[in-house]
């Protein structure tokens, strides 16, 4: 079953006068299945964040279609089922961790004991329960990222959309976030995350898609993509990093030869 489906999804950003300025995404055809971890890979500026924002209904497609759980992304009934962690944790920095989660919990319609229990549980998971009364402006980058993840987990979502979830984190912090992502998968949550850090995609993803200059240049199960046949038909397992560089370079070569 597809959780997210895009059909020829295209986004062209326009200037003040409505003239096309940047083609951020071109004819993206993608299906993300229930319960999988899908990694959207690509260099900076390849259209990853644009694709995620289109799937969340924060921006609108120029042409093409996107559906999430069979509905348009702006459908209000979807919003409590999708957790989104942006590239940076854009939270209200004058609030502390408890106040932040209470605020988001109230937007979900939670209140009273149910809200407090869920806030406590989530703060425990992300390891911020001891600093829950400290304002977010005093948090380190790693703590802010965990707080961003906490507001995702608060929803107990069916789909998690994570934009560069470990960027700027130290290895321990990144490892903790990866553990949480794997735990989400075990619980049956679908995870879509974007990254340009290949080392984080390889151990986590069931399938990946590589975006380059707004186009999806390859997509598939990680095990299939990383298997290449050599001349004597012996299967050699390629590292994702090698595969990624080769794929992008091939693309560049074909692009220049045109």
């Amino acid at each position, binding site marked *: 079953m597809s959780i997210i489906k895009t059909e020829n999804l295209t986004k062209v950003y326009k200037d003040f006068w409505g003239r096309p300025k940047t083609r951020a995404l071109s004819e993206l055809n993608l299906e993300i299945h229930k319960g999988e971890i899908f990694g959207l890979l690509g260099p900076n500026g390849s259209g990853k964040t644009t694709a995620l924002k289109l799937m969340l209904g924060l921006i*609108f497609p120029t042409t093409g279609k996107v559906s999430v759980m069979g509905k348009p992304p702006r459908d209000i009934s979807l919003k409590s089922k999708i957790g989104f962690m942006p590239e940076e944790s854009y939270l209200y920095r004058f609030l502390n961790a408890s106040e932040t989660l209470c605020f988001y919990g109230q*937007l979900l319609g939670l209140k009273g004991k149910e809200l407090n229990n869920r806030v406590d549980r989530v703060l425990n998971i992300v390891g911020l329960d001891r600093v829950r009364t400290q304002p977010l402006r005093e948090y380190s980058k790693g703590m802010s990222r965990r707080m961003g993840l906490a507001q995702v987990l608060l929803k107990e979502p069916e789909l998690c959309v994570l934009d560069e979830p470990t960027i700027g984190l130290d290895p321990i912090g990144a490892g903790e976030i990866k553990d949480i992502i794997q735990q989400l998968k075990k619980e049956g949550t679908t995870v879509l995350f974007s990254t340009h850090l290949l080392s984080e995609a390889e151990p986590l993803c069931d399938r990946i898609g590589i975006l380059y200059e707004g186009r999806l240049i390859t997509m598939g199960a990680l095990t299939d993509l990383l298997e290449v046949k050599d001349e004597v038909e012996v299967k050699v397992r390629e590292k994702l990093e090698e595969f990624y560089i080769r794929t992008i370079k091939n693309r560049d070569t074909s692009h220049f030869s045109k």
Partner: protein
Amino acid sequence: MIQRIFTLSLITIKESINKKVIYLSIFFALIIILVSRIFTSITPGAEIAFMTDIGLVTISFFGGMIALFLASDFIPDEIRKRTIYTVLTYPVRRFEFILGKFLGISGVVLLSHSLMSLIFLAVLSLSGGAIKGDLMIALALIYGTLLIFSSIVIMGSTFLSPLINIVFSLFFYLLGHLVTYIRHLGERMEGAFIKFFLIFFSYIVPDLERFEVKDKLVVGSALPIGITGSCFLYAMVYIVCVMMLTYVAFNEREV
């Protein structure tokens, strides 16, 4: 829905508490109201009227400043700091977001307006002035104009840059005090198009003249009966229309 709107207005109030413009405005209003007591000697025999005049103008001006600087920046600030990304991925409809912001700003404006009014009434009372019902009505009507003004500024903030929005909103605010003049001008015009345009425009801009009772109060005239009800009804209808336009503009906006 009500819980979400209430939550959004509460966060707006909490965020406003950190804004220096509120404290600066209240501080300057306090200074002017206090200083007006010293300068009553230039209007012998009309000291209380002078203080009332200065006090109401000061409250109206600084209340307007608070409304302008808060309302012009809140939605752009949410977009700039990208806090809106997270909020709009929660089950928040865009009209709830706008309404929450408007109610939050109205709350902050009410708090600051009440504080400035209390200072003014205390200084007036200490100077021997009577606190009459008409004075309270005048203060309530100033709040009505501030609500209308806030709604216009919020509407501008959904599609204009903060600086252009400030100019646009002040332009509307000033024209709102010239509605009768614009309408009369339109009626006297000969060209059908310009006549239609001016009369139509006079109905588009908020009729803030109807909220203007300071002059009557200063000269001691009685205020028309039912003025508070009619003004607040007008304010409510106008604000609902502006909020609907704001929703239309914001609903199509990419964040």
